[in-house]
C-alpha cells in the first residue's frame, strides 16, 4: 500500500482538509488562468504597432475597476478564511473519552507509551473509530509529530505538553515523520503509525502487555520518590489530596481556578510554587532534574488512574 496519497480517506478530518485544499486549487487555477489569459490577450492585442484601437479609460471607470477588484478579492479571501476557520474550530479539542497515548520525542527517536504501559519505539499502534489523543513532550530540542495520511502535525516541545488528536476510520500502516529540523539525523527520525480495528487493537494490547501498566509504574515511583509521604492518606504534612484530582477544577491561592490537566500536573511537579492550591502552604520542593519526562508520564498516568478508578480501572481497559 502506498502510504502517501494525494487524497486521503484515513480520517474524516483528512477528507475535510483535502476538500478545502482542492477548493483552493480550483480558485487558484481560475485566478491564475484569468491573469494568464489577460496577459496573453493584452500582449497580443496591444503589441507594439498592432492595429487595435487604444482608447483611454475614463477616470470614473478606472476608479470603479479598482474598487471592484479590491472588494472582490477581499470578499473572496474572507470567504476562504471563514471556510478554513470553521473547519479548524470544529476540530479544536479532543473528546473527553479519547484514548491517551504518551509520546516522548528525543534526538532522534519517537518513544510511545500505550495507556496500559506498552512501550514502543518509532511506532504507534492505535485503534480506528476511536478518538485517540497523543500527549507529547520532548526531552531535548523541538520536534514535530507529522502524520501525513491523517493530515495533521504538531510541534513537540521540551518543557511542556502539546496535543494531537485524531479519529481514524481506515486501518493501515502509515508514515510517522519528524517535521521540525532537530539536528543531524532529523531525516531518520521516522517511523510508522499502525491503525487497527478495535478487536485487533485489543488483541495486540493483550499480547504485548507488560506485567505492570503505566499507572502501576507510576504508583511505584510515587512511593519511591517520597510523594506519598506528604500526599498519602496518613501523611503528617498538610498537602492536597490527589484522589479525583485529574480533570477537576482546582481553586488556587491567588484566586484563579484551573483545570487539573496534564500540563497542570507536570507544572506542579516541576514548579510546585507556581500554582499553590488555596488553603495550602508552598512546601513542596521542585522535582526538576530529579524525574525524567518518562517518569512524569508514569506519575501522571497514576494520578489519572486515581481519578477514574471508581468508574473505569484504566483507559486501556475501556476497549
Amino acid at each position, binding site marked *: 500500500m502506498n502510504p502517501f496519497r494525494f487524497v486521503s480517506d484515513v480520517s474524516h478530518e483528512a477528507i475535510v482538509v483535502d476538500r478545502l485544499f482542492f477548493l483552493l486549487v480550483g480558485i487558484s487555477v481560475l485566478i491564475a488562468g484569468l491573469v494568464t489569459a489577460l496577459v496573453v490577450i493584452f500582449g497580443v492585442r496591444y503589441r507594439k*504597432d498592432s492595429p487595435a484601437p487604444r482608447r483611454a479609460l475614463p477616470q470614473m471607470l478606472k476608479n470603479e475597476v479598482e474598487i471592484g477588484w479590491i472588494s472582490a478579492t477581499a470578499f473572496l479571501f474572507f470567504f476562504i478564511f471563514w471556510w478554513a*476557520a470553521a473547519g479548524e474550530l470544529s476540530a479544536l479539542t479532543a473528546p473527553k473519552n479519547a484514548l491517551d497515548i504518551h509520546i516522548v520525542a528525543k534526538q532522534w527517536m519517537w518513544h510511545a507509551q500505550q495507556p496500559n504501559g506498552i512501550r514502543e519505539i518509532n511506532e504507534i499502534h492505535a485503534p480506528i473509530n476511536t478518538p485517540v489523543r497523543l500527549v507529547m513532550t520532548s526531552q531535548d530540542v523541538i520536534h514535530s509529530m507529522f502524520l501525513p495520511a491523517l493530515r495533521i502535525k504538531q510541534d513537540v516541545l521540551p518543557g511542556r505538553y502539546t496535543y494531537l488528536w485524531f479519529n481514524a476510520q481506515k486501518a493501515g500502516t502509515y508514515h510517522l515523520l519528524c517535521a521540525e529540523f532537530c539536528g*543531524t539525523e532529523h531525516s531518520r527520525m521516522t517511523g510508522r503509525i499502525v491503525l487497527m480495528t478495535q478487536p485487533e487493537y485489543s488483541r495486540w494490547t493483550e499480547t504485548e502487555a507488560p506485567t505492570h501498566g503505566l499507572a502501576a509504574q507510576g504508583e511505584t515511583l510515587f512511593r519511591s520518590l517520597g510523594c506519598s509521604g506528604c500526599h498519602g492518606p496518613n501523611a503528617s504534612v498538610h498537602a492536597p489530596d490527589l484522589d479525583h484530582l485529574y480533570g477537576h477544577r482546582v481553586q488556587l491561592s491567588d484566586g484563579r481556578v484551573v483545570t487539573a490537566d496534564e500540563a497542570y500536573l507536570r507544572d506542579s511537579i516541576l514548579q510546585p510554587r507556581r500554582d499553590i492550591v488555596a488553603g495550602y502552604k508552598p512546601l513542596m520542593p521542585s522535582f526538576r532534574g530529579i524525574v525524567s519526562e518518562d517518569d512524569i508520564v508514569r506519575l501522571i498516568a497514576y494520578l489519572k488512574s486515581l481519578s477514574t478508578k471508581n468508574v473505569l480501572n484504566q483507559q486501556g481497559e475501556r476497549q
Partner: protein
Amino acid sequence: MTDITVDRLPETKIGESYLDEGHSLASWLTTTDHKRIGILYALSITAFFFIGGAAIGLVRLELLEPHGLFLTDEEYNRLFTLHGIIMVWFFLVPSIPTTFGNFLLPMMIGAKDVAFPRLNLMSWYLFVIGATFTIITIIAGGVDTGWTFYTPLSTLYANGNVIAAAAGVFVVGFSSIATGINFIATTHMLRAPGMTWTRLPLFVWAIYATSVVMILATPVLAMSLLLVSVERWFGVPIFNPNNGGDPLLFQHLFWFYSHPAVYIMILPAMGVISEVFACFARRKVFGYTAMVYSLMSIAVIGFMVWGHHMFVAGQSPYANLVFSFLSFVVAVPSAIKVFNWVATLYGGQIVFKAPMLYAMGFLGLFTVGGLTGLFLASVPIDIHVTDTYFVVAHFHFIMVGGSVSAFFAALHFWWPKITGRLYPDYWARFGAITMFLGFNATFLPQFVMGYEGMPRRYHVYPEQFQVYHVISTAGTVLLAVAYILPLLYLGWSLLYGNRADRNPWHAAGLEWETLSPPPKENFERTPTVTSGPYSYGEDAEPQAHTA
C-alpha cells in the same frame, strides 16, 4: 501635460562618468558615491548568490537518490543551512535595495547622493564584515541549525559554528539598518524641487516601504540572535527549557523579523516591476494611488502576521485564527498589485524586450506564489503542509520566482544606465525564458510532493518521492544555466557592447534624463519636476524612435 523637465546645460560642460572618477582600487574602496557603492554591493551579493547556489546545487544532486549519493547527514544539514543563510541575508535582503536602490533612488528623486554618503559606505563595510564571519563559518565547517536558528537546538545541541554564523547575520543586519535609515532620510529630505510625494516613481515608494520594514524589524532579529549567541557562549539560560525557558519565545522574536523580511525581499521587486511594465507597455501604471497604498499597507500589516509561521508550534488556536485572518488581509493588497500590473498592459504599445520578459516571468510566478500563500494562511491546510516541500516551493516562488526574477528585470532594464553599454537582447530573452522554465521545473513538483507529505530538510526520504526530486534536480540544471548565462553576455557587453545613449528604452523618469553612465553628481543641474511619473501613453508625445 508636460514631460518631466530637466534644464540641460550644453554637453561640453558635463562632468565625466562616475566610472571615470578614479580607476584605482582605493578610489572604489573609499568612495562615498551612491552609484559606486551600488556597484560594490552588486559585486559582493553576486559572489554570495553563486556560493549559495553552489550549496543548493550539491543538495539537489544529493537528493537524486532516496538514500543519498555522496554526503553524510551532517554535511547535508550544513549545506542547506548555508544555502538559507547566504541566500536570505547575503543575497535577497540586500539584493535590490542596496544595488538598484542605491544606484537609482537618489537619481529618481533628483538628488546628488543619498542623505548620508559616509554612512552608506559604512553599511557596505558592515556587509563585508558580516560576510567575513560567514566565510569564516564556512571554512570552519559550517553550521547545522537551519537558517531559522531555532532554540534549543541552536543554543544547546547544534554542533556547528552557530556563534560565527549568528555574528555574521547580526552585523549584516546593521548594514541593512544603515541603508534603510539612509533611504528614508533621502526620500524625505532630498527630493528635487517639484518632486512631491505623489510624483515619486513607484520604485522609490517601494524602496521607502522596504526601508521602514528594515529599520523596524531588523533590530529584533539582531537581539534574538544576540541572545542565542550569549546563551550558547556563556551558558546563560535565556531559552533553556531546563531552567524554565520558553521554547517559543525565540520563534516569536525570530518571525517578528523574518516575516517582514519576506516583504523586504518582495517590495523592491514590486517597485521594479511597476517601472518595467510602464516602460515596455508605454503606459502610466494603472492605479498609482492604489499601488502606493498597497505597498504601504503590505509593509504595515506585514508586521502583524508572523504567527502564521507557528500554527503547529504550540501557540493558542485562537492566536492561530487571528494570524490566519491577518494573513488573508495582507494578501489583498498583493492581489491588487497583480491586477493593476495586468491592467497597465491594457491599451499599451507592448514591446517584449528582455526586461519585460523577466518582469512577465515575475508576474506569473508571483501570482502562483501568492495564491499558494492562501493555502498556507488557511490553518487546516497549513497544519498539514507546513515544514514540507509545499512551503519550500511557496516561498521560492515568492523569493526566487518573484524577487530574483525582478532582480534580473532590473539588471537588464538599468544595465545601459549603469554601465553605458547595451547587451545582446536575443541572449537576454533566451535567458529570461530559460529561467522561467527552469524555475517551474524545479519548484512545481515540490508543491506536489509537499502535499503528499515530504518534509523539508530531509536527507533521506521515502522512495515514492524520488520521481519528484529527480524532476526538481533536472530543473535546477536549467536554472543554473539561466543564472550563469547573464554573466557571459553581460560580461561581453561590458567589453564589446555598443554604447548606450541617455535613454535607450525611451523610458520616463529622471534617471533617464542624465548621461549613461551618469556623472558623479548625477545631473548637470538640479532638475525641476513638473508632472507625475510615467508620462507614457495617451498623454505623452508620440515616440519617435523604436525601443
